[in-house]
């Protein structure tokens, strides 16, 4: 069951409260499993004990007891198997099983008690080394291996304890020994040892119970966090859907107005409609980004992996961003090799990553500057570089760049626009596609963003 870090100190109420059915079934399973595991060890002990008894005291007694313990073991094993195989979870079945286990305990304990008391009687009033030590060993065995089930432990200790006391008491009674006789010393010693064995058992029991409690606490915590996670995922998914519905009505109305399909608009009305159009687009993009971020974070984003010409993807991304960059008066200088370079990726997401970096590069570049795009191959990897002339990003900015919702300079948010989600999505996409995305401050001015991939040949599965 693993190691114990620190024993839970159980209060009196907790120790004495009867366990619920689930816990009882678990205890019974544990006990039965231990019973089955130790069957070999037990038989060795019985054979050894019988051999000693047969050789030194009485062969008939030894053989009889060996046969009786044989039956007892068979009964026990049958019950253990039954308990472990059983799928029943109702209280009635559990109590039936418990009754069977207790019956088995009474039977095997009786045989062991008969053994010890039998030999003690044959010995007559004297020091009873063999029987008392065997009883002591049996009690310790019970403490170590029966602590899972309180009733069973109780029965064993009660029966062994009674025999343990009966033997020296019988001696004292038969011989009417005076208090200074060694027979009385034997009796007092028995009582003392009995207390010790009971205490031992209590401690084992406590350890075992605390382990179970700890395990249950961990399980509960796990369930809670799973539920919270699921709730969050469902919330985002539902909200995304809920937000798109009114947005549909807004965008469709605005787009029809803007396109002049619902009549001519005076100049200022056109302006207002244009503003509404632009901002409802922004809203829609934000919702899409949030959903993207959510799905890539929870590993449910689906990728359509194929052999992609990375140069093609770069050209498409630039085409997509060009109108935006033109408005910011930023140019692209794209210089690519003539031969296609293949990687294993999802084309749509790859373009999304490139567009995102290119648009960021434009956004943070001063008007009139140029963003250069280059491709380098280095052995089995290919690197796409986006070199801008804007504010140089430092190592310290790393978190701000890649964390969702933060922009490097938040005071700029309103002027530059965007929610700052793109980079964090891009990073996660690259992680999922087994590539990397990083940046470096340029020695002269600006930043270079690197997107690296293993090449198709290197990435091809064997």
């Amino acid at each position, binding site marked *: 069951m693993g190691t114990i870090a620190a024993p839970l100190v159980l209060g009196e109420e907790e120790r004495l409260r009867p366990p619920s059915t689930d816990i009882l079934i678990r205890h019974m399973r544990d006990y039965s499993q231990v019973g089955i595991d130790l069957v070999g060890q037990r038989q060795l002990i019985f054979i050894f004990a019988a051999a000693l008894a047969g050789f030194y005291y009485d062969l008939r007694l030894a053989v009889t007891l060996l046969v009786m313990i044989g039956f007892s073991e068979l009964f026990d094993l049958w019950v253990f198997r039954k308990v472990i195989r059983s799928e029943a979870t109702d209280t009635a079945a559990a109590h039936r099983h418990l009754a069977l286990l207790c019956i088995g305990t009474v039977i095997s304990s009786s045989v062991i008690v008969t053994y010890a008391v039998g030999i003690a009687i044959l010995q007559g009033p004297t020091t009873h080394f063999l029987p008392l030590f065997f009883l002591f060993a049996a009690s310790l065995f019970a403490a170590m291996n029966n602590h899972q089930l309180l009733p069973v432990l109780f029965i064993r200790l009660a029966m062994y304890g009674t025999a343990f006391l009966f033997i020296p008491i019988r001696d004292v009674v038969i011989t009417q020994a005076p208090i200074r006789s060694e027979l009385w010393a034997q009796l007092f010693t028995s009582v003392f040892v009995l207390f010790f064995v009971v205490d031992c058992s209590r401690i084992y029991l406590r350890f075992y119970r605390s382990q179970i409690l700890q395990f249950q606490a961990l399980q509960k915590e796990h369930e809670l966090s799973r539920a919270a996670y699921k709730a969050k995922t469902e919330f985002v998914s539902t909200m995304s859907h809920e937000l798109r519905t009114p947005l549909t009505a807004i965008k*469709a109305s605005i787009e*029809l107005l803007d396109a002049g399909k619902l009549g001519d608009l005076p100049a200022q009305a056109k302006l207002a409609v244009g503003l509404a159009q632009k901002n409802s687009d922004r809203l829609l993009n934000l919702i899409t980004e949030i*959903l993207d971020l959510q799905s890539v974070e929870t590993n449910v984003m689906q990728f359509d992996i194929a052999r992609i010409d990375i140069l093609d993807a770069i050209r498409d991304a630039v085409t997509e961003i060009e109108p935006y960059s033109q408005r910011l008066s930023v140019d692209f200088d794209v210089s690519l090799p003539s031969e296609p370079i293949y990687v294993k990726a999802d084309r749509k997401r790859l373009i999304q990553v490139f567009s995102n970096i290119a648009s960021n590069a434009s956004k943070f570049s001063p008007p009139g500057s140029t963003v250069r795009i280059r491709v380098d191959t280095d052995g089995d990897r290919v690197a796409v570089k986006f070199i801008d002339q804007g504010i140089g990003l430092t190592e310290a900015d790393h978190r701000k760049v890649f964390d969702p919702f933060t922009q490097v300079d938040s005071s700029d948010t309103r002027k530059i626009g965007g929610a700052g989600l793109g980079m964090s999505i891009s990073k996660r996409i690259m992680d999922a596609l087994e590539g990397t995305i990083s940046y470096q401050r340029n020695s002269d001015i600006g930043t270079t963003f690197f997107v690296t991939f293993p090449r198709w040949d290197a990435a091809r599965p064997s």
Partner: protein
Amino acid sequence: MANDTPLILQVDDEEDILAVSKLALEAVGGLRIVQCSSGAEALQSAPRENPDLFLVDVMMPHMDGIETLRRLRSIEGFENTPAIFMTAKATAQDREILMRSGAEAVITKPFDPLTVASDIVAIWAASRQSQPGEATEA
């Protein structure tokens, strides 16, 4: 009756979506459209109006789009009527599930009101081609 554009039966629980769809499809797109605000209403309306195409919203209370389409198609005469789902759910998995529920196409919300009419006509024409000889009017 013009046979080159379909009579559309649209089902959506959102009033405003119906209103804006009517604008885009009828006023601007020149298509004929009958609108219902629930699956139950649609099941009543279909035998009466005899549409050529179903345009079904997916997320509806009581009877969702998939169930509505299934029931519409089980009405005699409508087993092969082409259908298009409209949905705000945008993931690839959602699309896949909808396509497997027997629709010809899936339109995501927000839709483009300038092209949605011609898109629908194209989808309807394509489905007609794969079912030659089918009577389109009772």
